[in-house]
């Protein structure tokens, strides 16, 4: 019976994550894809690491953003490194684009899930190839899809409603960054695992840039925050 669920040497199984990254948001804009993620690595409820890069380049055309277990993300980056290496070794005019990377990762994630040994991540892959913009998402159980705007984790609940209202296909870079910051600020207020140090990445036909880390301004001068107990009866 045991062999149905486990094998002799199953010492490597992620049953629960240890060091995790929180939301990633991404959407298409006029010239390509914009993505944002903060640089936090939480150890349970402790915000343990504050310089974790969760947005990474993949080959010439793609960008990956990850939330979930950071060590599994590092493993995925190793797989992708090997994939791109072999792609380059062909030394022909062809190269793997974001669509191919997304589908490759979907196969990896789904196959791990079937072995009851998932890579505990939610991934966003975006990129531009031959003028064609691509943005896709894949999670730890292998669920995958493409869309004009995607998010992971809390981003799905806090950022996507904003994007549903305010996203347009022809956003300029500046408008896109403002929209990303609006979403990230929202997450910062409401997500316990968010940290105020984020990176924004943009990928266009010309190439990819990941910004230097920076912080968002936050506003705590709401009237309700001054003398918060003034109208309260009892200890609540």
């Amino acid at each position, binding site marked *: 019976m045991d062999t149905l669920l486990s094998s002799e040497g199953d010492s490597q199984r992620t049953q629960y994550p240890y060091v995790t990254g929180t939301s990633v948001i991404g959407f298409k804009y006029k010239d390509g894809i914009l993505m944002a993620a903060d640089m936090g690595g939480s150890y349970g409820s402790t915000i343990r690491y504050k310089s974790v890069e969760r947005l990474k380049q993949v080959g010439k055309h793609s960008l990956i953003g990850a939330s979930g277990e950071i060590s599994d993300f590092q493993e995925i980056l190793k797989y992708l490194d090997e994939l791109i290496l072999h792609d380059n070794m062909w030394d*022909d*005019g*062809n190269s*793997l*684009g974001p*669509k*191919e990377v997304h*589908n490759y990762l979907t196969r990896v994630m789904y196959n791990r899930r079937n072995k009851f040994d998932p890579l505990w991540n939610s991934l966003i892959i975006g990129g531009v190839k031959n003028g064609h913009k691509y943005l896709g998402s894949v999670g730890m159980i292998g669920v995958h899809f493409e869309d004009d705007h995607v998010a992971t984790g809390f981003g799905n609940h806090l950022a996507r409603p904003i994007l549903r209202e305010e996203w347009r296909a022809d956003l300029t870079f500046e408008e896109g960054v403002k929209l990303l910051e609006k979403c990230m600020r929202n997450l910062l207020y409401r997500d316990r695992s968010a940290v105020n140090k984020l990176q924004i990445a943009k990928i266009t036909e010309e190439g990819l840039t990941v910004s230097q880390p920076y912080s968002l301004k936050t506003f705590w001068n709401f009237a309700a925050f001054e003398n918060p107990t003034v109208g309260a009866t009892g200890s609540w």
Partner: protein
Amino acid sequence: MFRNQYDTDVTTWSPQGRLFQVEYAMEAVKQGSAAIGLRSNTHAVLACVNKANSELSSHQRKIFKVDDHIGVAIAGLTADGRVLSRYMRSECINYGYTYESPLPVGRLVVQLADKAQVCTQRSWKRPYGVGLLVAGLDESGPHLYYNCPSGNYFEYQAFAIGSRSQAAKTYLERKFENFPGSSRDELIKDALFAIRETLQGEKLTSTVCTVAVVGVGEAFNILDQETVQALINDFEISGEEGPATTGAAEEAAAAAAADQGGAAAEEEAAPMDI
């Protein structure tokens, strides 16, 4: 090529640095019935001569669809060709499953060539006795490759393999500079003309040849007999009606008359000049 003491094994070199078994395998390709391929900037066409063992039997399949964007025409040992086609289909399907994207032709051709090379360096194997004309479409446009039993592969604008392919090659050499800009129909017409060259006087009808096309916006497909016959009639390629004894001159006159009368754009010389 004469028998010699270095030709028993594929793993035996001759003192001149030749592998005779590999060369004999290429001979098998030359003995097969002709196959030709050509490409433009938008399409690639494969055509082949169909031999049947007797009137009672069906024609051998020489053109195989490998994927929506790749097809192959073979000459030589058809059984070897069938097996390699199955390998190619398998590779395409696996790549498509993992990447949701068509396998670039150039990569498939390299894999095929590497597979053929293995058989030239194992004492318990023999080289594949089939030449493959691989026509396919990828991001950089249509491509035509030729894979040899030796494990070599080359990219071509146009090529012909199999018996009497030299006649077709001569025709193609004269016309190939026009091919990049050719339309789909012009390309098919040139393919049919080239096939006719290899028939050496036999009448060209859709029962003796097969034509397949792949291109931008067109998945690889083998044209059905009616379509091919209609094209032959339209282009008036069939040649003379009677027995093939009158030879080149009459053919040239018929072809030239048809060309001037027809809508052909680029027929500056009669095809049957040899």
